[in-house]
């Protein structure tokens, strides 16, 4: 029977099928961080259980960590306590721990791929919903809850009902100034935040074939924002080149064996999906969100739609616009911006900083804007310096912070104050996500750059020529 890419990877990992229940799925790689793991370890202890395969779990501290002065003790006692718990638990069970200050420390979904923990055809879970990022490599990767973290520690398996399948094709090519983030926000605006609930998505078509690994990670990262359990892209030459030679990727004979498996990871030509969408890449504009969920996005030059034009209740829609201080029919161009955040596992990779820098080069940060530029890892941070991007940023009045999740979920001190507007390259514009009362507009690094130098929402295409883009 013909199979999808997803079927192939899933079926390879089913240990047992339970009649009238979920499949028992083997997990190749498990990533943990300080926020969703402590209670899992407590559970493990109270059961008297142990970690079945400590070498399949990797720990990094990211959600709670400060992004300045990381060499100093963490001042918030609760955060410090969680970081300590991660360290002690990792040590006790023999798990690799990349804590604050460790050279490999960074956002869990940025460091996983960087060190080759993320591999095509593998199953990867983490107690963070944006685990879908790793699907960019043709892996089945998804977020899990703390009980499931405990489950994976104890048995290296989780219980999952096999989701339905969806394919999203984007044909043609993207216009200038249009980035992978825009592609993702575009798709979510079409499907809504629940449009892919119950499905696992495969992204296909020329636009993804031409996309870099960083771009693919951005797209897969946002799969969860349309409700999908995860999203994946078939591995190809771009993928193999990215994974080759990294610390945890197979070497020599093991590489050949892995490659033989990876080469089978394509959806069969006659495989059928439960749902399929096709969009034309050239119709996508730079996107921005105007509401309080990632589905409330639009082309930057459009007007905020009327309640009747959008799915869902009018009351919910109005509540959302009220929170943002926006009105139906408003243009987004020219809206005030107080904060700009570039970072997170969505857009905290080198390519994002290259894009941001390409636009601000030779210009200056607007005085009314506070900008937080937060690399996703030490590798990204080092690259920013090596490639000379830091000099350009400094020249333009920007500073670089240290790696971490930062204002993506504002668990540390990087909080946008109540009522203030932020253009953010992260993934969620929920009420209070970036701090109580904070108003978030999600966008690409280019739109963030345009906002950072003009102090308001600006179409990046009005500021740069096509040839200036990286």
């Amino acid at each position, binding site marked *: 029977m013909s199979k999808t890419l997803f079927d192939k990877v899933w079926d390879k*990992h089913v*240990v*047992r099928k339970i009649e*009238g*229940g*979920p499949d*028992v799925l*083997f997990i*190749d790689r498990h990533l943990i961080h300080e*926020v*969703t793991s*402590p*209670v899992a370890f407590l559970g493990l202890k109270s059961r008297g*259980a142990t970690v*079945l*395969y400590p070498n399949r779990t990797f720990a990094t501290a990211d959600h*709670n960590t400060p992004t300045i002065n990381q060499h100093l003790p963490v001042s*918030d006692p*609760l955060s410090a*306590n*969680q970081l300590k718990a991660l360290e002690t638990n990792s040590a006790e069970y023999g798990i690799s721990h990349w804590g604050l200050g460790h050279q490999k420390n960074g956002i869990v979904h940025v460091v996983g791929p960087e060190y080759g923990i993320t*591999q095509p*055809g593998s199953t990867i879970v983490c*107690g*963070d*919903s944006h685990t879908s990022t790793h699907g960019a490599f043709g892996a089945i990767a998804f*977020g*899990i*809850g*703390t*009980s*499931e973290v405990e489950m994976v520690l*104890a*048995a*290296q398996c*989780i*219980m999952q009902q096999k*989701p339905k399948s969806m394919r999203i094709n984007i044909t043609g090519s993207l216009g200038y100034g249009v980035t992978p983030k825009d592609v993702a926000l575009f798709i979510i605006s079409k499907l809504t*935040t*629940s449009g892919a*609930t*119950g499905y696992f998505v495969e992204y296909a078509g020329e636009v993804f074939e031409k996309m870099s690994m960083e771009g693919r990670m951005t797209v897969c990262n946002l799969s*969860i924002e349309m*409700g999908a*359990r995860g999203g994946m892209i078939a591995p190809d030459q771009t993928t193999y080149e990215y994974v080759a030679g990294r610390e945890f990727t*197979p070497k020599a004979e093991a590489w050949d*064996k*892995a490659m033989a*498996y990876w080469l089978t990871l394509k959806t069969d030509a006659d495989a059928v999906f439960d749902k399929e969408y096709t969009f034309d890449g050239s119709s996508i504009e730079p996107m921005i969100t105007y509401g309080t969920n990632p589905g409330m996005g639009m082309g930057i030059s459009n007007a905020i739609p009327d309640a009747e034009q959008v799915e869902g*209740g009018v*009351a*919910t829609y109005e509540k959302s616009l009220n929170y943002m201080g926006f009105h139906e029919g408003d243009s987004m161009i020219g809206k005030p911006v107080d904060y700009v955040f570039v970072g997170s596992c969505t857009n905290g990779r080198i390519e994002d900083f290259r894009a941001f820098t390409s636009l601000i080069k030779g210009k200056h940060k607007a005085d009314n804007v506070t900008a937080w530029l937060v690399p996703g890892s030490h590798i990204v941070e080092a690259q920013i310096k090596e490639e000379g991007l830091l000099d350009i940023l400094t020249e333009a009045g920007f500073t670089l912070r240290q790696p971490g999740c930062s204002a993506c*979920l504002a*668990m540390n001190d990087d909080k946008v104050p109540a009522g203030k507007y932020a253009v953010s390259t992260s993934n*969620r514009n*929920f*009420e*209070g*996500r970036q701090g*109580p009362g904070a108003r978030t507009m999600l966008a690409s690094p280019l739109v963030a750059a345009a906002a950072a130098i003009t102090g308001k929402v600006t179409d990046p295409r009005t500021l740069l020529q096509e040839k200036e883009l990286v």
Partner: protein
Amino acid sequence: MAYDKFNILTSTAVPLPIENVDTDQIIPARFLKATERVGFGDNLFRDWRYNHDNTPKADFVLNDPTYSGKILVGGKNFGSGSSREHAAWAVYDYGFRCVVSSFFADIFKNNCLNIGVLPVQVSAEFLEKIYAAIFADPSTQLEINLPEQTITLLPTGEKESFDISVYKKDNMTNGFDDIDYLQSMKTEIEEFATHLPL
């Protein structure tokens, strides 16, 4: 973690007719710093429930003594967003054993099932009926019958059935969890691991 067995629940319900209630509203990120599972119920819907100075917001339903009960009735796409199980803990620890909605986000639903909160998905029409009944009379009782997989509006007897896998149903009625099951198949898992390509 052990939870109370679920069988038949008869209770009044708390209406929250808002769509896309995301996990950042159910429990804001700043309350995820605990290393133990304590106190999450106090912060359920924290920013909708309390003002910045921690005084209760009178117009939020959890602060309205008119409504109470062990069932929370939410709008479509309940629990979207983050994978934080803390959201499900907050719901459970506050005292809810069941959430009713016309649509649930995946991970939230899974998390609920893992910790003993029963997610009951009903049709949009039935959801409207429930809201209408509760708003007309807050003492309206709902019966959630897990063995029969039905939800009934007791005053009128109108009922709908809901889906749950046989396996999960078994777990919930017995208060078991997946780890108990997985630990019983350890040898099988270890044997399986030796044949993996990666």
